[in-house]
């Protein structure tokens, strides 16, 4: 059974310049126990998609259907939603602003632990320290008593991960949890995330392709508010079908670091036809006119992509 099923999700923000279509008809399914990586262009709507699931977007128009274990999340009232958030679904936010600047870090984590039923204050604090140790904080006891502004960038990131994992959720939405970590700690965090998610589901939003490769079972690639490719991790990396995905991989330092030409598309005046066509290096006539559907590639089952020329091998 799928733990999370997103159907035809649309998220739009009205702004004075026009309607920002941040997420466009996204369909996505996350199986129980699955780890799904979400990679793609900056500003393509990954964070918005993640926050839409937990309904933490302000000023947004959200349409479609999000089902979490059979519950239609968009129809729940705020109190029920709050109960899910932090207990069953937890979010590791992208921004360190999600740490409260005027509370000690250990207390924040302890509070989150207490919320899910660990009643004893002392115990909660102890568990908070353990949670911080687990993400590679040296002297966790000492640092639990400090405020976020005393933390270095990487320490804040680790604190946020500890906070997100503290409440023992079923579904974790992690938004770029490995940014700003050095290689050793990153390896440790990757290990930790893999460990704790053996019996949980994970939506792992990231720019760190190697972390995604190590953690995720499947990868979804987003571009301009849409999913342009989904498939098993090895499939995606070894055999990327969509020109955007390929371009992305070619931008890695180890692959030559060649940026995709052209500028990121506007989410207000969305490009016609295939949204990637102004930047694609092999468009055909049809590409500018018709919008390609997300279809299964003939050559590899379970590997979906949104391009007219996917089978041109």
């Amino acid at each position: 059974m799928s733990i999370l099923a997103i159907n035809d999700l649309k998220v739009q923000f009205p702004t004075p310049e026009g309607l920002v279509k941040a997420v466009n008809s996204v369909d996505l399914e996350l199986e129980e126990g699955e780890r799904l990586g979400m990679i793609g262009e900056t500003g393509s709507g990954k964070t918005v998609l993640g926050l839409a699931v937990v309904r933490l977007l302000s000023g947004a128009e959200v349409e479609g259907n999000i089902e979490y274990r059979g519950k239609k999340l968009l129809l729940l009232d705020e109190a029920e939603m709050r109960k899910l958030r932090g207990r069953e679904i937890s979010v590791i936010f992208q921004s360190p602003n999600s740490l409260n600047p005027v509370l000690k870090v250990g207390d924040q984590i302890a509070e989150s632990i207490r919320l899910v039923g660990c009643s004893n204050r002392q115990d909660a604090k102890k568990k908070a320290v353990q949670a911080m140790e687990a993400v590679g904080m040296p002297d966790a006891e000492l640092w639990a008593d400090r405020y976020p502004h005393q933390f270095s960038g990487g320490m804040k990131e680790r604190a946020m991960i500890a906070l997100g994992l503290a409440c023992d959720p079923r579904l974790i939405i992690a938004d770029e949890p490995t940014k700003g970590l050095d290689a050793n700690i990153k390896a440790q965090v990757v290990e930790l995330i893999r460990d704790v998610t053996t019996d949980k589901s994970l939506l792992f939003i990231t720019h760190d392709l190697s972390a995604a490769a190590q953690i995720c079972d499947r990868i979804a690639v987003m571009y301009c508010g849409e999913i342009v490719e989904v498939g098993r991790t090895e499939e995606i990396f070894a055999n990327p079908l969509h020109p955007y995905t390929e371009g992305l991989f070619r931008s890695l330092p180890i692959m030559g670091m060649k940026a995709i030409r052209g500028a990121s598309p506007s989410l207000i005046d969305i490009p016609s036809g295939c949204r990637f066509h102004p930047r694609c290096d092999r468009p055909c006539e049809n590409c500018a006119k018709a919008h390609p559907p997300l279809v299964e590639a003939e050559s590899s089952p379970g590997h979906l992509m949104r391009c007219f020329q996917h089978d041109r091998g």
Partner: protein
Amino acid sequence: MIEVEGLTRHFFSGRLGKERVEAVDEVSFNIKRGETLGLVGGSGCGKTTLGRLLLRLIEPTSGRIIFDGVDILHLKRREMRRLRPRMQMIFQDPDTSLNPRMASLESISEPLKLKGGLTRAEIEDEVSRLMEKVGLSPEHLGRRPHQLSGGQNQRVVLARVLASNPEFIVADEPLSALDVSVQAQIFGLLSEMKRDRNITFLFISHDLNIVRLMSDRVAVMDRGKIVEVGPTEEIFRHPLHPRTRELVSSASMDGQLTLMLKEGLISTVTRRPRPRMGGVCDDNPMDSKSSRLMINAGCR
């Protein structure tokens, strides 16, 4: 350009300030004009603190900083303010680097307004030029940080920094909030600034591949001290300090991904000859020696 001697900064915390963190400890080094010094080291070793000290955004406990022949720690408030725009910092988290209550337009134009002597129209022109340069479009002008993605915010930060027209930039993890393609783009932009405007950089990053491409020299930091400095290739080929060795070896741990990708690349290249189009990037897999040239030739 910048010379540092015995720079030290301690933080005190806990009850009665008993606990001491030696964030930066007796650090000395120099960076020549137009040179890029890469700064690497474990999380929490003091890189960000060092960057802030260099710009005198926080006061050191002791030490000397000479910027372009001037001992900046002895400057008066007002003289310091006049000097400030010449040195800028790109901060680690783009989400916290911008005033949450200011729209991009305001953020980018603030340094221009402070400079003075520009008409409103001139400021607007300059802002749109900068926005285009960093890859933002006019639709982003009126938005506040929480209405932009992490990567878009990072570009606003970059535009704001460029607006001051600095000679020295401390870039603290400038690429980690971006997708790899935009990373390559911004990397190209930074290299271009370095080349065309002879800007001096202190380049802080955990991504050693990028540090290797960007830096002329690399300094390795460990628990507040600089433990090794040397020309980039020297450091990567023959790391001396154990900490450096550890860092360099863990950098090549991305093996799994590389393997998958390489296999994929080879198969795609052999499987389908791609049609060439005007302006498309060069397709040859590059070799490491010519990397710098290749990047600068990058795609347009």
